[in-house]
């Protein structure tokens, strides 16, 4: 545990770790960044936050007056919240 180790032990651990890390292989940001960008572009079509979901398909969007009435009855939503969620 970090708290049980002496300063010297912690430093030794750190030095060993750093020696290993210096030897890691790395690629330039132009290449790594490009791969991140390409991943996003490939997946963007599947991302509900980017492409949006039709109201009737998203389980979290409005269910209609009956559901809202139920939520109100059970005290799980206030008039204000329901009114706010109706506005586009």
């Amino acid at each position: 545990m970090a708290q049980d180790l002496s300063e010297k032990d912690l430093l030794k651990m750190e030095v060993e770790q750093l020696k290993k890390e210096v030897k890691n292989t790395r690629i330039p940001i132009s290449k790594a960044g490009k791969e991140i960008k390409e991943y996003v572009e490939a997946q963007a079509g599947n991302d509900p936050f980017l492409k949006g979901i039709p109201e009737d398909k998203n389980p979290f969007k409005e269910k209609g007056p009956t559901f809202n009435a139920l939520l109100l009855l059970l005290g799980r939503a206030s008039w204000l919240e329901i009114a706010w969620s109706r506005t586009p």
Partner: protein
Amino acid sequence: MATEGLHENETLASLKSEAESLKGKLEEERAKLRDVELHQVAERVEALGQFVMKTRRTLKGHGNKVLCMDWCKDKRRIVSSSQDGKVIVWDSFTTNKEHAVTMPCTWVMACAYAPSGCAIACGGLDNKCSVYPLTFDKNENMAAKKKSVAMHTNYLSACSFTNSDMQILTASGDGTCALWDVESGQLLQSFHGHGADVLCLDLAPSETGNTFVSGGCDKKAMVWDMRSGQCVQAFETHESDINSVRYYPSGDAFASGSDDATCRLYDLRADREVAIYSKESIIFGASSVDFSLSGRLLFAGYNDYTINVWDVLKGSRVSILFGHENRVSTLRVSPDGTAFCSGSWDHTLRVWA
């Protein structure tokens, strides 16, 4: 002996200077690869449009600060834990509470849903991680079936099942992370390297292999090999505690949120920080981060009660969400990416879509 003391000091000093020079070398190697910035690579990418994200459900029932939450793989159920010692399982569609258990300690800082959906894990000031099977039998007392799995020497800050219900990964205030067998409670592997409390962890997406990332009060984010227990890479660019780490969906990068009011993106193949998400107007710590499905958006909850939505590629803020009445302490995107849930010190959880 005086000479021993002197020798001790020399060793300490020489170790320190060796560490410093190695850090310098590492910096140099990493700097060589900084040929462009991420937002430059993304210059031609279409800008994002306006987002309409609202609270669609509010989950009320906790008696005190919500500290942690996790989604079930069924994209509907949520487990949350609170300072009041309660752990609740909710149906987020209907907002019904399906299960509730009271822990023997307060400050349940970590909770997680098992991949099967049949159990949850949680822990906090009890220094343990316990697993509770979920049963729909009304006659069964959930607390009676509790199984203590992990034992640390300080508080449990984070926990996560691995790919199955059989193993749990934990992070603790004792400065270590550990991998446990759920059935036997046996310690399978421990991970030493953080110089202070470990506050968060995240497992790499299953396709990318057996690694996980952890963040701590030593301002370091460390990537670990689960089989060997070795740290593979470490990053120390944050200026304060790292409260949250989350892998990028492809597994090649991860984001972090910190008390220094910034979120950062680290690319594992470039072995360096590649983006900072910050604004001068944001001065409160980021407590929790998660990506949208494609990785284009980064949702971050802050101690100033807001949630900021960042364009990961361009580095700009896309949206700011208000609603919580106290710190946002935890945030996770649902498994299918249709919504995200935030938990707060205002005792509630909100589902946004």
